[in-house]
């Protein structure tokens, strides 16, 4: 009984080697003429669909005011405690507004719970995904960075109304 040295012994065809190389090269050659999936980031950017969960943003109404009433539910539900809200009183009809609204983007895990819990449709996940910081302080996004005009967020809001 001969001892089997390998899992599988090469056939003669395989041992000749050249045909296998030709097979490989022809696959490469075929792929060169297929459509490309890669992009030249950052010159070219990938625009995700409405279902994508990028960084959370606050919805800014057309009159420049935020929808958020600072109820604090997003902050409560946030698993990594990324959101800090300080409410305050305003003269507007909705008497409460966020004096401070900060998301620590180093903590954010893009889970989308904040968006899901929001009773006012005021915080939604955007399509922004390229976030880079050089220090901790830069990673804390205040209202200035979070507020995004509602007309840029229509497709996400539409998606939420359909699937939430």
């Amino acid at each position, binding site marked *: 009984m001969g001892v089997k040295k390998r899992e599988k012994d090469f056939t003669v065809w395989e041992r000749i080697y050249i045909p296998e190389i030709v097979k490989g090269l022809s696959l490469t050659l075929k792929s060169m003429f297929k459509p490309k999936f890669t992009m030249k980031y950052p010159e070219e950017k990938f625009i995700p669909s409405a279902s994508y969960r990028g960084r959370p943003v606050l919805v800014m109404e057309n009159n420049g005011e935020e929808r958020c*009433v*600072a*109820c*604090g*539910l997003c*902050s*409560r539900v946030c698993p990594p*405690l990324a959101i*800090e809200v300080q*409410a*305050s*009183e305003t003269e507007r009809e*909705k*008497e*409460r507004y966020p004096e401070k609204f*900060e998301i*620590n983007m180093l903590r954010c895990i893009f889970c989308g719970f904040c968006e899901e819990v929001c*009773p*006012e449709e005021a915080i939604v996940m955007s399509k922004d995904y390229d976030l880079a910081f050089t220090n*901790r302080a830069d990673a*804390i996004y205040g209202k200035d960075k979070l507020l995004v005009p509602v007309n840029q967020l229509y497709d996400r809001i539409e998606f939420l109304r359909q699937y939430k």
Partner: protein
Amino acid sequence: MPKFILDDKEIEFTQGQTIIEAAKQHGIDIPYFCWHPSLSVSGNCRMCLVEVEKMPKLVIACSTIAAEGMVVHSQSQKTIEARNAVMEFFLINHPLDCPICDEAGECKLQDYAYQHSVGESRFVEEKVHKDKRVPLGPLVMFDAERCISCSRCIRFCDEIAKDPELTFIKRGDRVTIVTYPGEELDNPYSLNTTDICPVGALTNRDFRFQARVWDMSDTKSICIGCSRGCNSEIWVRNNEVLRLTPRYNEDVNSYWMCDHGRVNTYKFINAEDRVKGPFIRKEGNLIQVSWEEAYSQTASKLKSFNKDEIAFIASPFATCEDNYVFKKFAQSIIGSKHLDFMRHVDPNFGDDILRKNDTTPNTLGCELLGISPNKSGLNLEGIFNGIKQKKIKAAYIIEDDLITVNPELENIFTELDLLIVHSTNFNRTTSIADVVFPSATYAEKNGTFVNFQGRVQRIRPAVASIDVDRAVDGLSLSRLDKFGTKYDSWAEKNKRDAKSSWKILTSLSAFFNNKFKFNLTEDVFDEISKNIKAFNKLDYDVIGEKGILLENINKEQSIKV
């Protein structure tokens, strides 16, 4: 004792008790909105409906007197359906304001909507709209839409505050609460209405929108507004005190607390003018120095005076522990005979409800500890005269802003060669002091106060400082405190460099011959209980959450205060 049966359990009750009272005593919760243990029975919310056998209809447990042999069902099909129906009625016109309502999180209507309601409304019509954001008084905001007309606030003003100011007007779904013409909800107890309001109709204007209740930690404490020593709770977020609420203690303050205690006794803790470390006057200016330098310089300055040239002024705002160590420092380390404290009596402050004329929390404590001059020592008046006559050249004052109370003292104290002050905030007294030590506020330390009845009560740290760590020293933690790291803006915020006065004095004693050996507040209290007769056999466990009445004290003494 007579008995009746509630949910198949035999329950003992005293004659005249209602079903809800007897049930509560035995730990069975019958839901209610309008009933309050300290107020008269109104019976208008219908939430406490229960089934009593042999009665034709469901009855309200809050006004039905329990009777021998009664068989009551609080969990039967009929009662559950009735509760659901009552909740449905309440929710017809209650607005969906929870996201902007301060009561959210401690709202009875929210809780019961989960527990006793199927959570669906069959009402499709427009809700009734009423006035929102109506200031009923300087401290209370009213939202008529949220009101469920339980009348607790009205009954509170009539029965507890003894100042009828509120009433219902109109009927049916238009019913609302207003103040009487020309009146405002401005009695000295008005904020209690916001506590007893089961919904968010009455909210505290002082606290409005400051924080969500679930974001705060709460710590059992004592109000320092007067010698009643109302049991209170300190609510803290981001290491900042945001509100005080009363804590139930039938023997002291029942469920209540006055507005002065609630609004005016915490702001100085968060204030900007807190003393942020030890200060020593150099070339006319107060300069911040290290603790070591402050101790050694203070000690050498004190040593340069004759022991009879130094006067010690303790404080009824400080705890028993602070005053005891202060007295010990004065008598056994310095050997001075001049020791006294200033009483703060405001004849216009007290009333027949809770407030007392003595506006400090610990006057009786100071008396019991013997904060008074030795036989040949000088009392407060004597000390002031002594300063004028240059007999007293140095003074050591803890935790009392004497000059603001009596501005004439400023001229007297400037005569001193050395003025050492322990203070929480910069004030008129510190402005002429030579050494200022930062003392911890009542929300940053452990200790005890003795109220006017002779009841010893505990305070506990609610705010973390450099000296008191939130986790290590067992302070109550909010969710944010538990999971924060030092990189989070909220976690390390506002940690102040302040210490209890007894700790400062203990460290200072190391520079003299006779060093104190106190490590914990408990050590100080142990020594107090050994040395002071009134405190015999007491410790913090015995005092507990509700305090304990001192038995060994002269009754006249407590009445005098």
